[in-house]
C-alpha cells in the first residue's frame, strides 16, 4: 500500500455511517455497463435489501449481487436499512446458480449491519437461508469475488462473503457482532461501542492479517473521504484484474483454493 490509513476503527465506523457515504446504487453505473436488475427469490417475494442482476464489467458478462443501503429515508425503507430477510439470501443464491449455469463470474458487494432480526425472518428460516448460501457458494462452479463496501455485519455479511477473493474498501469494517452489541455484553453498556470497536479487530488491515481478506482497495490517494469517482475507479480496476485472473483458472483448482482459504482460518494449539 502506498499510504497508511491512520484512522481508528471507530473513526472509520463514523465515516461509513455518514450519509454522504456512497452506496451500491452510486457505484453500479460507474463500474458496470448494460446492467439489468433481476428480482425475486421465486418463493415469497423480492427483498429490497438485496439487489441482484446481470451486466458487463469491461465487456465481460457478470452477475452482481449486493446489499443495498439507502441514501435517504425512502430508499432505506425500501431496502430495510440493508438488513436482508431470508428471501433476499435466497434471491442471491438463485442468481448465483444462474451465473454458474452461464459461466458468469459472481461479484458480491457487502454492506449490511446484519441479517434482519424479526418474526417473519425467523418464520421463513433466516438461519437456514444463510447456512444454505454459505454452503452453496462454497461449491459454486464459477468465480466469486466479494467486496465489503462499508459495514460487514456478521452472518448477514458472510452469506455473500464465501468467495475466491475478498477485498475491503480501506475504511470498510467486518465484524462478528456489532460493536454496540459487544459493548452491551462485555460491559453492559452499549454506549461503550467505541471501545468495543477497537478490541474486536474489525478493520481492513485486520482482515488481511487474519487471512479473511486478500486485498484492500484504496478510497483515495489523499485523506479525502467518500470520493465516489475515485472509489469506483479503484474498485473497477481491482475487479477487472481479479475476475480475469480467476476466470482463467481451472475450476476444480479454484474450488480447491476456495475451500483452503476458509479451511485454514482458525487459531488454536494442539499438544499431545
Amino acid at each position, binding site marked *: 500500500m502506498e499510504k497508511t490509513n491512520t484512522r481508528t476503527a471507530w473513526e472509520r465506523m463514523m465515516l461509513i455511517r455518514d450519509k454522504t457515504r456512497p452506496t451500491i446504487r452510486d457505484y453500479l453505473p460507474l463500474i458496470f455497463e448494460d446492467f439489468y436488475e433481476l428480482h425475486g427469490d421465486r418463493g415469497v417475494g423480492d427483498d429490497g435489501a438485496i439487489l441482484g442482476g446481470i451486466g458487463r464489467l469491461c465487456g465481460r458478462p457478470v452477475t452482481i449481487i449486493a446489499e443495498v443501503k439507502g441514501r435517504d429515508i425512502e430508499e432505506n425503507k425500501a431496502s430495510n436499512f440493508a438488513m436482508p430477510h431470508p428471501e433476499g439470501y435466497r434471491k442471491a443464491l438463485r442468481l448465483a446458480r444462474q451465473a454458474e449455469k452461464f459461466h458468469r463470474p459472481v461479484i458480491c458487494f457487502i454492506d449490511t449491519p446484519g*441479517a434482519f*432480526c*424479526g*418474526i417473519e*425472518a*425467523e*418464520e*421463513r*428460516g*433466516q*438461519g*437456514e437461508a*444463510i*447456512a*444454505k448460501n*454459505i*454452503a452453496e457458494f*462454497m*461449491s459454486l462452479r464459477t468465480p466469486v469475488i466479494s467486496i465489503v463496501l462499508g459495514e460487514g455485519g*456478521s*452472518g448477514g455479511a*458472510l*452469506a455473500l*462473503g*464465501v468467495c475466491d477473493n475478498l477485498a475491503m474498501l480501506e475504511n470498510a469494517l*467486518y*465484524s*462478528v*457482532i456489532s460493536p454496540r*452489541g*459487544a459493548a*452491551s*455484553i*462485555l460491559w453492559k453498556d452499549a454506549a461503550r461501542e467505541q471501545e468495543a470497536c477497537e*478490541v*474486536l*479487530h*474489525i478493520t481492513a488491515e*485486520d*482482515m488481511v492479517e*487474519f487471512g*479473511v481478506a486478500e486485498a484492500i482497495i484504496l478510497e483515495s490517494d489523499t485523506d479525502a473521504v467518500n470520493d465516489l469517482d475515485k472509489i469506483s475507479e479503484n474498485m473497477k480496476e481491482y475487479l477487472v484484474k481479479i475476475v480475469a485472473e480467476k476466470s482463467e483458472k481451472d475450476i476444480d483448482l479454484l474450488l480447491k483454493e476456495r*475451500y483452503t482459504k*476458509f*479451511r485454514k*482460518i*482458525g*487459531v*488454536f*494449539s*494442539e*499438544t*499431545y
Partner: protein
Amino acid sequence: MLEDLFKTVTKRFNGDDPEPTVPMFKCPRCAATITQQKLAELGKVCPSCQYHARLTAAERISITADTGSFTELNKELCSKDPLEFPGYAQKIADLQQKTGMKDAVVTGVCTIKGSKTVLIVMDSNFMMASMGSVVGEKITRAFEYAAENKLPVVAFTASGGARMQEGIISLMQMAKTSAAVQKHNEAGQLYITVMTDPTTGGVTASFASLGDIIIAEPKVLIGFAGRRVIEGTIKQHLPNDFQLAEFQLEHGYVDMIVRRKKMRSVLSHLLKLHGYNAAPNKQEVRIDGKN
C-alpha cells in the same frame, strides 16, 4: 444470543442466587419446579411440559453411543485467544477447570446399535457452546474424517452462536464447518443433525441447518436471532412458543421431533435405512441392557 450467554455465565460465576439446600430445577418453559435429583432421574426431561433440558457432552454420549464404543478425536485442541480479548484467556482457563473439557465440543467415532458413525456433541456448559476456532476446527475435522472414511455424521447441536472473543475468526468458522459439511455431502454420506437446547445464531446459520435430516428434541429453543433482540426490534412481547422446536417443525425447518428416550433407536433406524448396517455378529449390547 451472546448476550444471553454472558448473562448466564456471569450469573453462574458471581453466584447471584443464594444456594438452596436442595438444588432445584425450574423449567424455563413451564416454570414447574422439581428437585435436580428428580430431574436427573427423569433423564433431564421436565415432567410437566416435556422440555428436554440441557445435557453435558458426557451424558449425551453415554445415552447415545453403544457402551464403550466411543473413541474421541482431536481431544487436545485448545483455544489461543487470538485477539487478546479482555478476560477471554481467564474465562477459558476457568471453564476448563470447571468442566474438564478443553472447549465446547466433543467429537469422535462410535457405534449406535452397531452402526459405525462419527459423533459431534456440543456442550452448552462451556461458554454456551459458542463457536470459536477450536469448536470450528473439531467439527470440520469430524466431517472430513467421516467423508474420507465413508461414515455418517450425527451432530447434537447446542450453541449461543459465534464466539465474540475470537472476532472475525469466529465468524469464519461458519464458513469452514459448512464447507466441510459440503465435502461430506459430496462424498454421498448421511448427516443427521439433532438440535438440542439451545441451537441459535451462527451455528443455526451454518452446519446445524445443513443436515440431510434434522431432528429436534421437544421444546428446545431453535432460531437465528435472540429473542430479546427481536423484541427490541419490534417493540412487542413474543409468544411463548416462538422459536421452539415445534415452531420450527411447523415452519418446515425441522423434519421431526424425537423424545430423548426414543432418540437412540430412531438414529439407529435412520442409519440402517441409509445402509449403515451393524457389522455382522458385532452388534454392541449395552451393559445396562437398555438397547
